[in-house]
């Protein structure tokens, strides 16, 4: 859905995405690969650094008013931690920031994450274009809500 419509939606203010690893996970190579790919795709990229708590991730996302939070974990704790982020967002009534997941996520966990609104959940070897298209699609939903044109 990287179509003309989302191109004009983001023409003036690019997609703003926060990359975060909200847990004890030092595998940050993927973060740098994604940060560069997102920037080269024309996005404004923030990185929450290593070991932020889910609360800190949401504070940053709200203060920066990002379109998408990109959660990444390679440590196997995604079900617990991603859910915590999604729950906190829900509790705060935030429905105009999208959450996309990724890392080492077994196929059997993906539907569980989708059910709580965390989409994508891409792992090693996913073409960057697939990831960028998905982020763009979710960002378009979020931005439209922010601007009240959803």
């Amino acid at each position, binding site marked *: 859905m990287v179509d003309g419509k989302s191109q004009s*939606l983001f*023409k*003036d*203010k*690019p997609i703003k995405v926060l990359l975060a690893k909200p847990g004890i996970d030092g595998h940050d190579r993927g973060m740098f690969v994604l*940060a560069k790919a*997102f*920037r*080269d*795709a*024309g*996005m*404004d*990229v*923030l*990185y*929450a*650094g290593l070991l*932020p708590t889910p609360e*800190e991730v949401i*504070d*940053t996302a*709200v*203060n*920066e*008013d990002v379109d998408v939070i990109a959660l990444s974990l390679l440590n196997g704790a995604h079900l617990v931690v991603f859910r915590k982020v999604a729950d906190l967002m829900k509790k705060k009534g935030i*429905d*105009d920031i999208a959450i996309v997941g990724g890392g080492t996520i077994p196929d059997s966990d993906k539907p569980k994450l989708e059910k709580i609104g965390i989409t994508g959940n891409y792992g090693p070897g996913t073409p960057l274009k697939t990831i960028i298209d998905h982020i763009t699609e979710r960002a378009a939903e979020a*931005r439209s*809500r*922010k*601007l*009240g*044109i*959803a």
Partner: protein
Amino acid sequence: MMKKADDIANGIRAGDLRSISRAITLVEDLNSLTIGREIIKNIYAGTGKAGIVGITGPPGVGKSTIIGNLSSKLKAKGKKVAIIAVDASSPFTNGSFLGNRIRMQGNLYRDGIYMRSLSSRGSSGGLSRSTWDAVRILDAAGFDRIIVETVGAGQADLDILGMAHTIAVVLAPGLGDGIQAIKAGLMEIANVFIINKMDRDGAFIAMKDIEDSLALTPQNEWKIPVIGLDSMKMEGYDDLIAALEAHLSFAAKDKGNEKSRFFHEVKAALLMEAESRINSLTVSSMSGITDLDRKIRDKVNPYTVAEEISRSVLDPSS
């Protein structure tokens, strides 16, 4: 979901972070130009209370690190502090890595300080406009001190700094010969000089160099102080705060300053009006120009045509 301009403005006045954040998005995005403006019109009367400090200087000298430390210190002194940091974006892809936040993240998390990153995308006028609006929003929200980080190069950056009451220029040892050129460009706008990385070789020489140049430059009643910082050891920050606060009080007494700021604000708004009207011109609306076909045939130069249009666009009565 998006609320109405009035609701957001009320949220800003109440200091609600989500309203503040959303309002900044709406003034950044030209898709929401109308509501963004409504918000600013609504809150403008409540602005003018905050002390606005611009921190500028070349990349890598330690501006973000300083701002993190400084805001924690100010917060400990009971001030409400907010930060805006402008990152350079790639002119090729328009994308950017908003890296300033990383450097101050520890302070932000620990002390609950509001910080917002802006990227210098697209039109240069757009960035200074949205930065000014973001500052107004934070001002109306009741922050006492608003700190703005820029790299201080290029017209958009200088325009942003036009709204600061106090400008601190940061330099550090190790900039090489480049320091002379940078110094020359930033010398005129500095109210306070900071030499950061005093732990590094050459720091005292850099400091002496600035002091010597200042001694040779004619100054007004405000004597520009030169502050040395070691941001790893948190040394020099009390002197820095004293210097910034002294200049904020100095600037507050200067009524001419207020007038020129207001003029600057109106001029920026006017430029935006003109820009949007000019951007809305199209080939088909251009055909409204008298004798377009003849002008093309006779090769009338574009300046003459533009003068004609500018009369009708900017001053429809003439």
